[in-house]
């Protein structure tokens, strides 16, 4: 973690410029709201109180996004970082923490909402108290926050997975299959449709999608479905599993079978689940967003809001330290970027 922070500081040239400028400003935080006066120079105020409110504490994913992404960012712009939240992922418990934050005069609340509606009332009260609200990971209704930092678009997710399976299978191509979650999961189906669109492109003409099966996000069912795919399609070259449960189950099956290394596997997973399978060669690479970058961008988005650099309107731009320049999209959305690729060379940097 320390090494990481040093690296981040070293690469934060843009932020350094912003900081020197910011140091001249007379502000020391404390919850003022100059958001409406505008701040064309794009300098982030010092001393901003930025608090992350994840779905729950003690969750490795959010510890990565907050402590390894958000915290270094807040330190870069000389703010006060904190992470707080309930120990269980319930909306009502989160509301209690929002209320606490609005009483504490927090400048920026960065929240992963447990319920897009239930936290709204208290977020509105916090806004009235002068806080800027940024959602990350899970959005609320748009009117309840100032900006949403979106980890990835459906298009980005679909493109990344097709590219990964194509790279893993190699130039000869061949038959591939998808191991999904449940048959009526909205996001899964959206990704599958977009993957089919992607497969229709000429560069992927050698890949043929032969089956889509559903493991219902249950470990055992996913395991059996992976097994079934290989007995039914002996020429299968690769499996895409865009669900963390599915990819882990399929990896476990492949790794213990004779297909290990011959049938490629990729999809959306987490490093802790797949570390051993990346190291034993079952999985060459898989995708997800980088939660640390997500937290980092969310912190800068909140700071930009609280400093009046942006107000959450479409087309506004701001600089997010080492990640560079971002533009606010429709409905106050800020898109992190393409999914992040995890492979043998970087997987040990992550713990979630």
């Amino acid at each position: 973690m320390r090494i990481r922070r040093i690296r981040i500081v070293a690469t934060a040239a843009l932020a350094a410029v912003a900081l020197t400028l910011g140091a001249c400003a007379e502000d020391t935080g404390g919850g003022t709201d100059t958001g409406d006066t505008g701040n064309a120079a794009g300098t982030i105020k010092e001393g901003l109180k930025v608090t992350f409110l994840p779905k729950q504490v003690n969750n490795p994913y959010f510890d990565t996004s907050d402590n390894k992404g958000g915290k270094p960012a807040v330190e870069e712009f000389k703010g006060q970082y904190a992470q707080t939240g309930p120990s269980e992922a319930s909306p009502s418990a989160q509301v209690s923490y929002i209320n606490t934050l609005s009483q504490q005069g927090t400048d920026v609340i960065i929240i992963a909402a447990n319920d897009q509606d239930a936290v709204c009332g208290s977020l509105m009260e916090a806004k009235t108290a002068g806080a800027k609200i940024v959602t990350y990971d899970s959005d609320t209704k748009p009117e309840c926050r100032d900006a949403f930092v979106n980890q990835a678009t459906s298009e980005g997710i679909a493109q990344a997975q097709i590219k990964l399976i194509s790279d893993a299978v190699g130039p000869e191509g061949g038959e591939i299959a998808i191991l999904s979650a449940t048959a009526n999961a909205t996001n899964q189906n959206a990704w599958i449709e977009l993957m089919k669109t992607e497969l229709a492109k000429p560069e992927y003409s050698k890949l043929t999608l032969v089956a889509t099966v559903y493991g219902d996000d249950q470990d055992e069912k996913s395991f059996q479905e992976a097994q079934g795919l290989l007995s039914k399609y002996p020429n299968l070259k690769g499996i895409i599993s865009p669900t963390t449960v599915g990819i882990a189950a399929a990896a476990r099956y492949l790794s213990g079978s004779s297909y290990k290394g011959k049938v490629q596997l990729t999809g959306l997973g987490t490093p802790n689940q797949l570390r051993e399978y990346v190291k034993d060669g079952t999985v060459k690479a898989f995708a997800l967003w980088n939660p640390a970058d997500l937290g980092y961008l969310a912190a800068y988005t909140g700071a930009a809001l609280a400093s009046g650099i942006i107000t959450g309107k479409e087309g506004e731009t701001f600089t997010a330290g080492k990640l560079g320049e971002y533009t606010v999209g429709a409905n106050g959305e800020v898109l992190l970027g393409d999914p992040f690729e995890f492979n043998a060379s970087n997987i040990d940097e992550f713990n979630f």
Partner: protein
Amino acid sequence: MATDTLVKPARTGSAGPPGWRRLLGSWDAILILALLLVVLVATATIEGVGSPRFYRFVVLEAIPIALIALPMTLVIITGEIDLSVASTVGLTCSVLGQLWYLGVTSLPVLIVLSLLLGAVLGAVNGVFITVFGLPSLAVTIGTLALYRGLAYVVLGDRAIADYPPAWTQNAVAPIPGTVIPWFVLVLAALAVVFGVVLYLTPIGRSLYAIGNNAEASTFAGISVLRTKFWLFVATGAMAALAGVFWTFRFASARADNATGLELAVVAAVLLGGVSIFGGRGGLVGVLAAVALLGVLRNALQLADVPANALTIVTGTLLILSVVGPNLVRMARERLRRRRPVTTPLERTSS
């Protein structure tokens, strides 16, 4: 004849000075002092505690717990328990949300239907416990799962959230001129009703008798089963009222609403000095305990105490709540035994 000694804890009003003196050493008094102490210390040391907004948030959080704690106090005094209350809240929220979704747009109708539903759910508990003679612990663990399951049948993973803004704003609207939510007045009125029943009516006295010795109470002419049945109905209806408040406060009806709330309620009731074995305790202590837990939680949260440490604090308080009243009682009894027989306290109280 036997009832007079059985109902001792409830009868503080009968004698003047001894009753008052007994109150000073009572668990109720300790709780109220603890509450005042926590408020004073926290206001002095933690920024934000003591402001009107602080109390607004504490009250908003405490309302559902207190609403259910009122009937739960009576239930536990009779030696029973109802663990299905949070699931009753969840099922009420779900049905309320679904009815709105299906086009029932009259708020009074929605509220009345919700309360009826709660009463029916409570009656189901009551029937199993009084007609079939099953232990309430087992029955309500069963309905805890059953009612939550039904909530998922009604709503699945949907959330119904598109209520008229006036409804959701009114649920948390303050009393004019303050920031304290008006709904606390509903709670206060209901607390008075439950207080009158418990302290000033024969029914109330009979609850202590039932908790101390159900068999003897039956012989003394108390209709134990009927009393218990209606207590469970009342608990269901109050949980449903909490569900209505919950739905509009959070503007969101979901099947998992209020999961785990039963533990917060039982914790407050036990910390309030109600004996889990029945026969002992009262509403004053319970309401003080709800306030104490609420203030403590919010104050510690403002002091940036992490969630993990908060649960440890609540857990310790709970253990204290079970051990504490017993220690106080034992200490008092020992004191009394040591004193000469001529003490005025001794003379009137025994």
